[in-house]
Every structure is written in structure tokens, then in C-alpha cells.
């Protein structure tokens, strides 16, 4: 289980609607992490929460994607200072 995370990093599920964030890191089995990265979810990617929940909808570099991670995979983000 992924328990600790750095200051200011929160799991992506905790973003509120309209809130922007930068992907900080993705923790989990390497294959799943790689798949997410290929899809465009990488440290440094800017995202905006469009529809919270599970699965959630994220706005990402001009497109919207739907994301549901299993327990083993966790996407950590740092929320942007300003609200979307």
C-alpha cells in the first residue's frame, strides 16, 4: 500500500471540480505506471478535474480522459495555487 506522500501532494481523487494540478508522481506496478505515462499522465503534466469520483474525468492537454485506478496504482498531484 502506498501510504506516505510528500507535502502538498494529494491523490488525484481528492481534487475538486475545476481544480487544476500538476502530476507529481505515479506510484504502482511498473507496467501500469508505464501505461499511464504513455497515455500522457506523466510527472509535470498539467491536469484539471472535470468530474470527480471514480472513475473521474480529467482535462489534460486539450482532451478529456476518464480514469479509474485500482488500489495498487495511485496518481499524486500538486494542486495549483489558483482555483480553476
Amino acid at each position, binding site marked *: 500500500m502506498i501510504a506516505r506522500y510528500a507535502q502538498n501532494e494529494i491523490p488525484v481523487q481528492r481534487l475538486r471540480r475545476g481544480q487544476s494540478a500538476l502530476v507529481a508522481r505515479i506510484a504502482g506496478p511498473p507496467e501500469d505506471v508505464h501505461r499511464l505515462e504513455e497515455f500522457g499522465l*506523466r510527472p509535470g503534466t498539467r491536469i484539471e478535474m472535470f468530474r470527480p469520483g471514480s472513475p473521474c*474525468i480529467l482535462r489534460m*492537454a486539450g*482532451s478529456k480522459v*476518464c480514469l479509474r485506478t485500482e488500489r495498487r496504482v495511485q496518481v499524486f498531484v500538486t494542486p495549483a495555487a489558483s482555483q480553476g
Partner: protein
Amino acid sequence: MNDESHRANPDSSLIPHPSSFPVVALIGNPNTGKSTLFGALVGLRQRVGNYPGVTVEKKTGSMEHEGRRYAVIDLPGLYSLAARSRDEMVAVNVLLGRYDDLPPADAVVAIVDSSNLQRNLYLLSQVLDLGLPTVVALNMVDVAAGQGISLDVRRLERELGVPVVPMQAHRRIGVDELKAALSRVVAAGPAPRPSPLPEAVRREAEGLAALAQQAADRGGVVPRLPAWLAQRFLLDAGGHLEQAIRGDGDGRLREELPAARERLAEAGFRVPGVETAARAAWGSRVCEAAVRQPREPRPTASDRADRLLTHRLWGTAVFALVMLGMFQAVFVGAGPLTHAIESGISLLGRLLESHVAQGALRSLLVGGVLAGVGSVLAFLPQIAILFLFLAVLEDCGYMARAAFLMDRLMARVGLSGRSFIPLLSCFACTVPGVMACRVIDNERDRLTTILVAPLIPCSARLPVFALLIAAFIPARTYAGGLVGLQGLVLVGLYVLGIATAVLAALLLKRSILRGRTPPFLMDLPTYKWPSLRTALHRVIERAASFLRFAGTAIVGVSILVWAALYWPHGAETVEGSHQRESYLGRFGRMVEPVFRPLGWDWRIGAAVMASLPAREIVVATLGVVFNSGEEGAKPQAGSGGPQAAFHAATWEGTERPLFNVPVALSMMVFYALCAQCVGTLAAIRRETGSWRWPLAVFGSMTALAYCAAFITYQVGMWLGS
């Protein structure tokens, strides 16, 4: 023109046939308008087939420009060339020319979505590293403009090192320029391009390629690795390519691979992360240089629509309405057409009966061929309308939203949202439902959905249920006339099918199809007006596929069943008594002990066995067997004829009535859970690529249906006594 490094080794299965036309591969992310572009390039000169061993569709066509012909292959939409399964390997195999009838690619058209360039650049970066002559189709420039994104095409060309053609494929804008650019790059041949991968990675890949070369020179079976393939072999940890090449025998290559990765990890380039980092950094640089976009993305029309359509409550309500509309169209809309077809078939039957002399030929034509063809054609309007709806929903982008809304529900069963609509389609007919499973990209999920689909109550079960309920379930009502017993039984049968499907999915996911569920990650494409042309094309293609696979199976088995019911044959006409002496009848009487615990006699058993081509045939066969109709006639459910015949039927040689409520229930339960549908089995064979699965489905569902019918009858009799 064919780069020598792309030729596979002397192993004969890997030598492609020489082609006189240059082969162009069309590659890109899903939802970039690739199919539209393919259609624009080749027009009607296209063919859809299958790659061996996978269910991915093979789309090939031929394109013409200034008198020269080019073969075009539409590769499946991909996010990356890193293949994790046989399906995903298709693109790599096609590029290499590993399929017997497709030479290796001579050039590539990479299509990207202008409004989403950064993400598309990942695959594009891998494609550029192939070293093939490449043209970039910068599609959907109108969408980008609408979002305030401006692209410096000249700058892009400089950064990428290849021609870039702005396009709007659906309006056919830019197609000629694309063709012109393509013919220029094909003529110019391959040109080396700088790769964003670190030097260390490239060197290790070259080392592996050299090893493979040495092994091939020594006469080994290892295929030669062109530079880009060696890179993929190195980078795709645990991927399909690694397994494929590892199996190929050369020990040194197998040992060297982990050693190479270890060296890279020590140098700070851990595989596979090094690739995503390098390519993403390159992609950012390119976008920085060539793309101007507003700081805050403008909310688009799609966003506004999604505020409603992905709303968990209202979005689901809209979805329920859309599905209701779809079923309404399928059942009600198809009605007149189905009726017309059935009338046509009966007309044809009467014509045959009046013009062909009585005998084996006439019986074959009417009872075998026409009956089989008739049931296939009677399905066709329903199936076509269903396919049309599914095609339109997919094309306009709504399908992804539906998958999103249903995902949480499906996740409880171990599947994902993508399985919902195929399973829902099975309520109309299982065959299109099984075929619709192609949209499920996760292989394990797709197989589970396909295996569970036949349990969903399809519309062919209704005639059986309707007939037996009307005949044997009393028309009692409860709650002051609100709830009817007959309706309850029907609902109960539906719930039985659905609940069993859910349990089967859970069971499969925990046992033979167990495995790690990858994260559910799905693109929500921008909404667009569905193209009627694409939709109709898809409908015709799927309907033709249905006729070819399910249709031939149904007609074939119908003829076999007819033969089993016809022979041996004397001078008598086909009546119930005659059926007794037929092969099927004799067989039925012989195995009657198997049916008796269910409360059936050999006649019911034979009718059930004879309904293998398609479930609802049992209605007609029961009619014939119990002497209430002529061969080929369909008794109307609810009319006096068959019901009276059923009530009058007795166990042979006794006065004991054959039919009672437990018997009727056991028949209905059997039909709820059985797989008496050769069309479905043929579709499963087609979609899974092997006979193993349809046989497993048939065996397990028949066993399940038998046990459930047994329990129903025994419990029913015990309760009644």
C-alpha cells in the same frame, strides 16, 4: 525502395511477397480521424479482413496519385508501439511485413489530432524513429482553431524533419496535398533522423541488433533486428515482443537483454521510464516551439455537453432514454421489415410446394434451406438497426460517455464500462453483442464479456417464453390487478439470465481469467456529428459478416437438423408419427431417460435438440411434433391450436398428461440458460479465433441449463404434491 534492414531472415514464414506498389501504413492515436482519412485516401477500394490469430480487423486499400498506385494499410489506433498483447503487436508485425500477404511498409502516414498535439507526439516520436519515409497528417485543424490553438506548420516541419500537411479529413481538405507529399517522400526514400532517446540507449540497442545479426549469420532462427525493433526489444520490458523473440532460441540474446537493461539502469536510464521521459521531453520542446495555445483551455461545446451527459444522475437518465430509444427502434422499427421478410419466405415456401414434387428435395428446400435462411433473414432487420445505432453512438463520441457512466457498475463485476453496451445489445440479439465486444481493448475483459454474453436473455427466447407462459401459467393477478403472475414469471426468467451472467463474470474473473486489472483509462473524444456514410458502411460490413459467419452456420445446421428429422423416410408425409421414426426421433427416444428427470418426454427432448440452429425453432418444432401444424407453419402464440395440443398431450401409452406447470417452467428455465444458438457460437468462434471457447460455452451452458431445469421440475413437482 524496401529498406534492406526490414527484410526478415531466411525463415520462410517471414519472407513477405514482393509487391509492385509501395506499401503505406497509416498510423495514429485513436480518435484522430484515421478511418476517415483512410476512406478519403482509398475511397471504395478497400477491404476488411482479419489478421491471423487476433481479432483485430485488417483494413487494406489502394490509393492512386498521378498515375501511381500505393497500397494503404490502416493500422489499429494506438497510443504507443510498445505491444503488450498479440492484438497490440499487429502494428509492429505489419510494419515489419511479418504477415504473409502484406509486404513490409515502405512509408508511413502518421495522423495527429491538432487540438491535442502533445499527447499525439509520443507515438509520433516512436514512428519517426522507424526511419521510414514519413508524412504527418495534421488533422482536425478546425477543432484546434476553434479552441484558439495556432500551429506553426513550417516550424513543425523543421522540428520533426518530415513534411506536415494540415488537414480536415472529414471535409476532404488537404487530402491532395497529403498524397503529393506522400509521393515525394516515397520517391526520396528513407532518411535518418535524430532520435530523442539517450545515446546510451541507442548504443545498447545497436549491441543487441549486432548480436542478433551474428546469430542469424551462424544460421540461427533469430530474426534480424532493424535498429528500431532492437530499441523496442530493449525498451518494452515484459512486453509481447520480448516474449516472442525470447522464444526464438538464441541464448546469447536472451542473456544479454537483462544485462543491457541493468547497465542502462546503473547509468541512470531505467527501462521503460527512460523512453517516456525522453519522448515526452522532446514532445514538450516541439510544442513549445510550434504551438501557441491559450493559457486556460476554453470550455468547448463538448465540455458543455459533458456537464450534462457525464452527470451521474442526469447523465444516466439521458443514457437510459437513449438506450430505451435504441430498443424501441430495434424491436418496433424492425417489426414491419421482419414481418415483410417472413411473409416473403412463406410465399416462397408455398411457391416451392406448388411447383416442386413432394419428396426429399421439396422437404429439403422448404424444411431445411428455407427454414434456415428464413430465420437468418428474419434477424437481419433487428441486427441492422442495432448495428446502426451502435455505429452512430460510437462515431459521435457518446459511446465513451456511456462507458464512463456504467463503469462503476461494471467494475463491481470485474469488468469495465466498455463492456456495458455490448452486453446490453445482447438483449436484442447475442450475435451483434458479441461482435460489439471489439471495442473492449483489455483482452481479458473482452473474452469474459464474450463468454458471458450468451446468458443475457435475448429476444429469441421471447417466443418460447410467451408460448409456454400463455399456455400454462394461470393469469392470476395480485395487488389489486397491478401485478400479474404471467408477467412475474417473465421477469423472473429475465432476472435469472442476468443474475447468472453476473455470477459467471465474477467466477471467470476469479478463476481462469484471473489477472491484474489494469487501470481503466479511456479517451473521451470531442463530440462530432456522426457521419452517416461511415455508419452505413459499418452496418453493411457487420451485416455481411453476420451473414457470412452466423448465417452460414445457421443454414448449415438447419439442413442437418432437417435431415435428422426426415430420414429414414417412407411414403408418409411429415407428421408427428413420422418424426418418431426419424433419426432424431429415434435418438430422442433412446435418450429419453436423460430427459425424464426434467419432466420431458422424447418429443420435447427432440424439439429442444432440433432448436440448435436458433432457439425459436423449438416453437415450430413443438407444433409439428404435437400434430398441431403442418411442416414449416408457425403456430401463433396464444391461439387455440398449440395450447390445446399441449394440454391434450400425454405420456406415450398412458393417460398421464405430459405438460403441467413444472414441466413448462423447466422448459423455460432450460431456454433461459441454454446455448441453443449456432449463430452465437459461430460469432464467438470468429471473435475469439478458436473453437475452444464456443465449445466450452455450449458445454457449460447446456450442463447448467440441464441442472437448473432438473431442479425446477423436481422442486415444482414436490411443491405441487
